[in-house]
């Protein structure tokens, strides 16, 4: 991809970061703040959502688009961990104080002003992700900033405290039905929105990382998926596009560059169309059912479709030759842009357009001639073919017409979904601000001066300062400390240091590398609690176990969550041994392997060390074993000579 001159392009980015808080219960009901993973739901509930009239008596465009999708909504529910609040059958209870205090702390760390009287608002969602049709949300803080490494301050517009939406379960996704699981619904969440102060993709990545680190230095949920980031991107003459679902920090620069490319090329298309002096209103030409004419087509899947009763429609788009084929970003043409929107709204799988290689579809020259004749396609035009049910095609035609007409305007405002390859796809229309209105079911919530004062006096250090401090102090890379924070282990690390100050690197290795390796082996390492770790490192401190035993105890606990560390240690026969006992063991090994020693001399050290460790692993430090073995061998060899 070309290098962009971001300044010249007028790049503006903003971030929206969502982070679940780690309060014991949910924000507006007292259900546990616990995801249920893959556990089967106890019952399901089918619901419908309808757009509601807005204040001017009209419907929000984004809501109508959702409604047009005509999707069924099924809620997957549990009998024990959700209540009638989540299924929209009971009004909200008091706002969770613990969650509110965590959010205040975050607000203060972001140098922002805490709102003294919060008003709960409702934000409409029609995709079904919230059973009542709106999310309860409130502004908790305003006008703060986060400082980047180079000293640049990125403004924080607002910090909202709100409920998380239900969790979409993709696994059972059937046609035309959205499945949502209600365990996630109502979990307290903060949404941090920056001002559009970011002018460079790498700066955006750094800002997202700093915000992430800052959030993870407070009592937030520190598991996969508990933090979600969206980026807003716009360039001069373009539009603010919201990109949702950015799962990794490293995706950010790529996503922004691709979005710049998309907007840039859409603006070029607009200029091209303007130059050609085309009439927007007349851009859609003939629209015809050409199933009969193309019954005998040599394109197999079309012929088969028509035979099975599907309709083939063609439409002529005047003056659009070569536009559908124009690449907007990598492997993504204007045609892709139109077809993915068609797919999302009408359910139609895709479309064929004349900028594609039609021979590859199996169309003959004759077929193409018939299509062009019937639709009256001129050299400068483009035609589009749709195959499907009449109702789907009608919806699709509507989508195409709107999108084609918008090509004259430039970049349509949308919410787009981030894809792993750095591209994005249409998710939904950008919601208008009008979908936010006061919640009439709740009273204003006061953040008392005294509460704020109390939290202010206990604010932690900024994580980037901690990273610098620790990496110097423990002579380790900054990356490692960062990893500790992002794996949620920083606090535990600090605690374990108190119990076992001897070897900070060992603690870090156990929490990061060992844990990761065990997880990769399919071990349930979440069975190991903070208390277990404390116990393991206390045993180490009191020399009851050797450092090799740490991994064995972790494995033991992962496999047997019902056992105590003490019991696992006993099972593993990990009582530590004295140096005398060690020497006895070493001597007996040497005796057994006398011949080997005679042949290989010191090269026998390796295999013998292995034998020794088999017997003493975890009971005594390997370094001690190695030293003792070496001494014993040297002595024996001396004797032999």
């Amino acid at each position, binding site marked *: 991809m070309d290098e962009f001159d971001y300044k010249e392009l007028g790049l503006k980015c903003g971030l929206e970061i969502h982070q679940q808080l780690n309060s014991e219960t949910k924000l507006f009901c007292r259900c546990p703040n616990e995801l249920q993973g893959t556990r089967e739901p106890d019952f399901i*509930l*089918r*619901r*419908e*959502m*309808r*757009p*509601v*009239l*807005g*204040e*001017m*008596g*009209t419907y929000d465009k984004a*809501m109508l688009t959702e409604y047009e999708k005509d999707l069924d909504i099924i809620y997957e529910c549990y009998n024990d961990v959700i209540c*009638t609040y989540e*299924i*929209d*059958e*009971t*009004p909200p209870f008091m706002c969770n104080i613990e969650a509110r205090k965590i959010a205040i702390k975050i607000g203060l760390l972001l140098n922002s*002003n805490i*709102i*003294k*009287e*919060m*008003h709960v*608002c*409702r934000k*409409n*969602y*029609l995709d079904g992700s919230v*059973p*009542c*049709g*709106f999310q309860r*949300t*409130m*502004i908790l803080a*305003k*006008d703060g900033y986060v400082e980047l490494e180079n000293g640049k301050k990125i403004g924080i517009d*607002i910090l*909202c405290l709100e409920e998380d939406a239900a969790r979409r379960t993709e696994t059972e996704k059937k046609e035309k039905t959205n499945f949502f699981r209600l365990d996630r619904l109502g979990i307290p969440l903060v949404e941090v929105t920056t001002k559009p102060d970011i002018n460079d993709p790498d700066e955006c990545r750094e800002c997202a990382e700093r915000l992430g680190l800052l959030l993870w230095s407070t009592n937030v949920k520190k598991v996969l998926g508990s933090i979600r980031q969206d980026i807003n991107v716009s360039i001069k003459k373009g539009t603010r596009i919201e990109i949702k679902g950015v799962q990794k920090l490293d995706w950010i620069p790529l996503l922004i560059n691709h979005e710049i490319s998309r907007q840039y090329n859409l603006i070029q298309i607009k200029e091209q169309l303007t130059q050609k002096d085309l009439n927007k209103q007349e851009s859609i030409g003939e629209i015809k059912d050409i199933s009969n004419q193309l019954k005998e087509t040599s394109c197999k899947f079309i012929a088969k479709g028509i035979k099975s009763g599907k309709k083939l429609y063609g439409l002529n788009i005047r003056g659009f030759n070569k536009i559908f084929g124009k690449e907007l970003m990598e492997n993504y043409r204007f045609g892709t842009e139109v077809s993915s929107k068609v797919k999302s709204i009408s359910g139609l799988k895709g479309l064929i357009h004349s900028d594609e290689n039609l021979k590859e579809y199996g169309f003959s020259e004759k077929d193409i001639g018939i299509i062009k004749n019937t639709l009256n396609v001129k050299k400068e035009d483009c035609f589009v073919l749709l195959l499907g049910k009449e109702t789907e095609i009608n919806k699709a035609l509507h989508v195409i017409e709107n999108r084609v007409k918008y090509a004259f305007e430039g970049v349509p405002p949308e919410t787009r979904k981030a894809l792993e390859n750095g591209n994005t796809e249409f998710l939904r229309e950008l919601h208008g*601000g*009008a979908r*936010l*209105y*006061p*919640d*009439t079911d709740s*009273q*204003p919530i*006061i953040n008392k001066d005294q509460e704020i004062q109390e939290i202010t006096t206990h604010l932690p250090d900024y994580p980037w300062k901690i990273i610098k401090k620790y990496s110097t102090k423990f002579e380790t890379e900054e990356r490692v400390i960062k990893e500790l924070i992002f794996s949620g282990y920083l606090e535990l690390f600090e605690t374990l240091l108190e119990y076992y100050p001897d070897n900070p690197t060992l603690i870090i290795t156990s929490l990061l590398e060992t844990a990761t390796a065990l997880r990769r082996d399919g071990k349930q390492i979440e069975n190991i609690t903070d208390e277990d770790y404390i116990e393991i490192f206390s045993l180490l401190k009191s020399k009851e176990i050797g450092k090799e035993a740490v991994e064995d105890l972790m494995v033991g606990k992962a496999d047997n969550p019902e056992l105590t560390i003490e019991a696992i240690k006993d099972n593993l026969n990990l009582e530590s041994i004295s140096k005398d006992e060690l020497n006895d063991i070493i001597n007996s090994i040497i005796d057994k392997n006398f011949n080997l020693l005679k042949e290989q001399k010191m090269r026998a050290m390796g295999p013998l060390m292995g034998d020794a460790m088999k017997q003493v692993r975890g009971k005594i430090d390997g370094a001690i074993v190695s030293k003792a073995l070496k001494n014993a061998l040297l002595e024996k060899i001396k004797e032999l000579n």
Partner: protein
Amino acid sequence: MTEKLKGYKKETKTLLNNKNIGIWDILKVKTDKAAYQGILLPRNEYSESGFIELKLKNNYNVGIKLEEIKDIEKIGKKEAKYKIPEKKFPKTKGFPEITLLGTGGTVASRLDYTTGAVIPAFTPGELFSAVPELAEVCNLETIMVFEILSENMKPQYWQELADEVAKQANSAKDGVMIAHGTDTMGFTSAALSFMLKDLNIPVVFVGSQRSSDRPSSDAPMNLINAATVATSNIAEVVIVMMGSSAHDYGLIHRGTLVRKMHTSYRNTFRTIDDIPLGMVKNRKIRMFKDNYNRRNDKKTIALTDFEEKVALIYSHVGLTNEEIDFYIDKGYKGIVFAGTGLGHVSTRIYDALERALEEEIIVLMTSQTLHGFVGMNVYSTGRELLNLGVIPGRNMIPEVAYVKLGWVLGQTSNFKEAKALLTTNIAGEFIDREIPIAYNYNIDQLLKNNKV
């Protein structure tokens, strides 16, 4: 001046007044560290004083503490004046003619985004904007009979409503829907059941448990279901509301056997002691029972006289003679007890009961268990109460018994006649037999059963 600063008090009000600021003014407010711009909102009079309430540009509302305000400046005004666009409700030749009577509930509405207030949609055109499917079921006319909160319902309104229904029934109309708040819907449905003699068309009560400004509202489906029942052959007073928490089907409940059973569930209404008359789903009706009145050519008469001096007393362990004496002293003509168990009150209040009956006050016994018949021959207390002259209310729900007694005493002041009327089945309030699935019926069982 009060309206100009609705809800603001004390120092806040003084400050705003001094700056000549009113509700809906666009303000710039500076505090120590922050700057706000937004519209000054009216404030709930029960909210804490010492704050001003703004709707910010991003549409969030916030309250700013008076003490923190350093500077406040008026830069414009934006008053909210909204109306639902009137679309014309399409009239289709040959479709049933339905009248929707309004009582003040909001079956359909749209929002005032600024205050969160719900603005009712009521004219056919407004309803068509909100629930266009109605036009596929019927032709619609609407009449606002009165506008009250459901909890403020009173017998006088029942009379007005019954008169209006009779007028509709005796005109060319094919059915009536009544939009009603759910709190007292069961009382009103019972009242109209007793008051409307020889009813010739369906009278369908409808409401909603989730207000219609939310996308998950039950109102649109309830309206469509109710309209469907209003065009049916069921010439009875019924309540049609959702039958499950899912947006699936509505149940048709007889007006004298139905009760609101949950504070907030969508399927709050349940038929008590029997199964619902039927269900309505996707604009089709399926009956579970056969003993309902059909559409007919009789003239509907509204017998609306009602005795308001009737008490409904919940029997409890602390009930005293004094409490009963109060009603007797105040000239009450009837008392309904929601008795314990099979229909009991404490023997400690026999004195007051004896006095009431001596003064020809009718005492009617029902049970606070809601389900089942009273059985006053089983225990000595029951037998003693019967002996005192207490009338057993059979299976009647306490509220229905209260409405019936008021209506009966409106029809006659003769003690004997009243007693006779009370024990007559007027509007399906009595059941002959309680079928086993009536208690805890569920839809799967109902669908399996033959009509009863």
